[in-house]
Each structure stands twice: as C-alpha cells, then as structure tokens.
C-alpha cells in the first residue's frame, strides 16, 4: 500500500486530477456551509448580474447570478452533489453487475457467454441517451429513476471489459498452473483472474464516471433528471442556453464545472491504473 502511494504521488497529473476531484467532492459535501447564498433563493433585484470582475459585477456574487437572481457559484457548489452522487452510485452498481456477468461470461464461455453477450449486444445497439430517455419516460423523471435508467445500460461496459480481460487471463499459464494444483473454478475466477482485471476495471469505471456525469447533465438538461429547483449542472447549462448572448456565464460556469470534473476524474483514473499495476512497479 505504501508502495502504491509512493508511485501514485510521483505522477503529477494524477495528483492534480485527484486534487480536482477532492475539491469537487468537498465542495459538494460542504455546500450547505460554504455556499455564500441559498441556491434556490430567487432575488429579482439581482437578476443576470455578471461575474465579479466584470463591469456591474460584485464580489457578493463572484460568478454572477441567473435569470432568477440566484447565485451561480452557490448553485454550482450544490450541483456537484447531484453529479457526483449519480456518478458514484451508477458506477458502483453497474460495475458490480458488470464484473459478475463479465467473469461468468468469459470464464465459462459457450452458451452462457453467448446468452450474456447477445444481451449486451442488444443493449449496445440502443443509443444510450435514447434508451435512458425512453426508460425515464416509462418510469417517470426523478433521481432514483435516473440512476436505474443509467445502470440499466451502464453495466454493459464493465461487463465487456471484464470479459475481455478474463479471456486474456484464462489462456495464461498461471491459470493452468492453478488448475494443476487442484484449484476450484471459484478460486480461479475470484482469486487468480479477477485481481488481474482490476486495473482495467478501475480505468473504465473512472472514465465511465465521467460519462455518467455527462449523461446526468444531459438528462437534467432535458429536464428528466434532477428536478428544479434542486440545482444540477446539466439543468443550469440548459437554462443558461437561452441567455447565452446576454449572460454567457450562466451556461459557461456549470459547463466548465463539468469539464474540469470529468478531466480530473480521467487523470485520476489513469494515475490509479499505473500505481495499482504491480507489473509496472520497478
């Protein structure tokens, strides 16, 4: 473990990514205490105030205000909660399901594999967003339904990745070696093969967190995800779109928040992969 930290710290980009993610997480967690304003409190006297450094701006609203006079900075801080929660929950659920089916599919092969992979193919053949919109149209909008709609397809990616890794690992001599000493299928799957898929799963999971955050933003943008007045980056971008010429900051800052978070997560993910893989240790 100490080894892992030492290696991770050496990778400056990954540390930077980790720092970004940490800041975003802290921002979300402590939003109720550090946000300068109530994110849902409308104030018609302060509508569409520009950011502090522009003419007409003030440090009371560092990133300006929206069309209802709500503080953009506070809403971004609160919005982090929605994005990160959805991202984390969806990925944890999807990865668990995906690992399970990926392992079984890759290890046993044959008919089991065929059934699972055809299911995967079918899910993959739907455009992600269309599928999510369709599901949410049936289930109705809302936070939990959004999580379910995303997991419904999201498990496919870790499943494919794990299956591929299992197929590669299965033909390795160490698996045969384990069989030669009499190890059971369960041992071989969970103890010999699974640890070798970890780095790929971590990389994919982090990349997909970023994806899910984008999906959440898209769904919220479309009004299906997090419901107003609860702030979410996606719905902020959507609302700011109408004012893009008068008040560019409305769409830009939540958009930047999405960009920075996604980038930070990706850098972190790659750093984790490098640090976790013992083959890359000296």
């Amino acid at each position: 473990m100490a080894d892992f930290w030492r290696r991770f710290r050496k990778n400056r980009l990954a540390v930077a990514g980790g720092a970004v993610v940490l800041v975003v997480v802290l921002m979300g967690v402590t939003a109720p205490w550090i946000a300068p304003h109530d994110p849902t409190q409308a104030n018609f006297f302060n509508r569409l105030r520009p950011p502090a450094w522009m003419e007409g701006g003030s440090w009371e609203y560092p990133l300006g205000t929206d069309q209802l006079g709500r503080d953009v900075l506070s809403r971004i801080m609160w919005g982090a909660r929605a994005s990160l929660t959805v991202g984390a929950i969806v990925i944890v659920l999807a990865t668990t399901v995906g690992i399970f089916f990926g392992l079984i599919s890759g290890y046993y092969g044959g008919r089991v594999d065929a059934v699972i992979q055809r299911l995967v193919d079918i899910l993959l053949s739907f455009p992600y967003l269309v599928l999510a919109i369709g599901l949410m149209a049936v289930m109705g909008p809302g936070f939990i339904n959004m999580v379910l709609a995303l997991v419904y397809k999201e498990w496919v990616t870790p499943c494919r990745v794990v299956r591929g890794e299992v197929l590669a690992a299965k033909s390795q001599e160490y698996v045969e070696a384990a069989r030669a000493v009499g190890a059971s299928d369960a041992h071989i799957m969970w103890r010999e093969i699974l640890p070798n898929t970890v780095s790929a799963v971590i990389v994919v999971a982090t990349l997909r967190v970023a994806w899910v955050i984008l999906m959440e933003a898209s769904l919220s943008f479309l009004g299906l995800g997090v419901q107003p007045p609860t702030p979410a980056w996606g719905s902020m971008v959507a609302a700011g779109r109408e004012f893009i010429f008068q008040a560019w900051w409305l769409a830009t800052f939540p958009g930047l928040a999405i960009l920075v978070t996604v980038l930070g997560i990706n850098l972190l993910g790659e750093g984790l992969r490098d640090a976790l893989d013992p083959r890359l240790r000296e």
Partner: protein
Amino acid sequence: MSQQAPAVDRALPLVEVQGLKQHFPIRPNSVERLLGKAPRVVHAVDGVDLTIHRGETVGLVGESGCGKSTLARSILRLHQPTAGSVRFAGQEITTLPANAMRRLRRDMQIIFQDPFASLNPRRTVEQIIGLPLAIQGVPRSEIRERVMAMLAKVGLPPSALDRYPHQFSGGQRQRIGIARALAVNPQFVVADEPVSALDVSIQAQIINLLQDLQAELGLTYLFITHDLSVVSYVSDRIAVMYLGRIVELAPTEELFAEPLHPYTRALLSAIPRVETRGRPRERILLAGSPPTPIDPPAGCRFYSRCYLKEKNETCRLVDPSLVDMGRGHQVACHAVAGTL
C-alpha cells in the same frame, strides 16, 4: 541422475499410459457452418503408449506441434483425454470424479516453461506457493512455515515471501514455479520445457536444482524439451515424438549410440554441437516441415519426410506400431523393424 535416489523400487511402474488420444475439435467459423462443413479435428496426441517407472526420468523430445506438451497435460488430466487410459500408481485416473482427482493432484505436479506467464502477477510468492498446500487442506497457520521451507529448498531467501513475481529474475521465477510444484510432496513431476526460457548459465542452475531435488525427494520426472542436449543430460530414457506419436523410445545411452528411427537420426544429426574436432560430420537434412496434425496421414506419420531408400507403399498405408528391438529399445518404423 536417479542413482542416488532413495530406495524406490524402479521396476514398479508409476505412470502407465495406454492408447492415449487427445483430439481437439476446431470450431468451424460461421461460413463453414453455413456450408455444412464437418468440424475439423486436431489430432494432437494420437495413440500413445508410455510407461514411467518410479524414480526415473523420462525425456520427451520432439519439435513444436508434435504434441509433447499436450501429452503431458493429458497425463495430468489437465485436458480430458479423448480416448485411452492413464493409470497412476495402479489407479485409472481418466474416469476419476473431480473430488478424488483434486486429492490426487498432490501426487502429480507440473513445472511450466514460461516463468513469466506461469506465475500470477497479482499474487505474492507466499500465496503462489501456498495455494497447493491450502487446497490439500494444510492449516493456514502452517502454510507460511512450509512455504519458507520450500523457498530454502529451491535456494530463495525468506524475504521472497511477500514479494511479487515481477520482482524476480527469470531463473528465480523458475525456482518459485518449482517450489509450487514440489510444495505438496508429489511423486511425479512433469517438467515442461523448464529451462527453455532461461539464459545458458541459469539453465545449468535449474537443471542441477531439479536433479538435486530428485535425489533428495525420490521424484519421478517426465522431462519435456526440444533441446536434445539437455534431455540427454537429465534423462534415463528418452521418448521421441513426431506428429502425435512416440516413434522411438530407448535408454539414453542406447538412443545416442544407435538411433534407429530415421526421424531420430535426422534430429540428432541436426543439432549443432559444441566441438571443433571431428568436423565436418554427416548431416541428414530433412526436407520441408511436419504435416499438420489436423489430417495426419494414414500410414507412417513420417512418410512425407522420410529419406530411407526402403520406404514403400506399406509405409504410406500401414501405421507402424512400436516394436521392441531389445535392450528396452522400441521403434515404430517398418523399415527398421523389418515389417515391410
């Protein structure tokens, strides 16, 4: 190498293989399936008889694709044999239920060629060597100690215990592989090209280690290699394989003094020797390469490359079987055995 072995009754067979066949179907691709083509079959091992006695080392040589590694894996039942019988210490193992087979694995182990691929990069040396012990029901508290003892036996420091395979050199990794195979005190060990991936000077270390361990533990080896110099050094008897069959089997000195099968003779003459005197020597250059094991020829498998003047229609059509030529020397060749 087995002269110093503890008192083992060498006349007793430990492994008896009879008529062993290992075929692998090739899954037809979708086009072939549409055309209704019959699935093709690789005849990797195609009718092998072999007896290995307690305490001896049998060398198994042959070129790539001749089925020597598959034969070893079928004997260990890492593949389920297509046909034939394998008896281990008198017990038929090809039909043994999974549980009994798992218990039997304590007695028959394998050392792999590739010291990189055969050790799981995610597991520590203790976990790797401890695995067979754990499976055979050794209590957790004892495993660490027994692993330490094994490490000492193969010449690795106790500090190796908590390290990962990638922290070792090729030779050291092969020692870890040997420790894993020997941890459960097996009687029979298959060594599948154990030194082929190693540097020359390290090869000698591992060969000597294997010999010392054999002497100390009274092991029986099936030693697979394509390197005839190595196999001639370690083996009591040598079996030569060609295209899924054993074509010649003889005590080592006998085989080198008087190779009988035309393939063996070509093989021996092809080996570059480290010597400056006595050159040039006669070299039999074989034409072409072995046929594929997908459709092995009906008669003698060596027919297409055989250079003997005597070869005729019998060779092409009739499959020669191993014939005892005396002094434990068996050969499968019509011309040599006089069955033309």
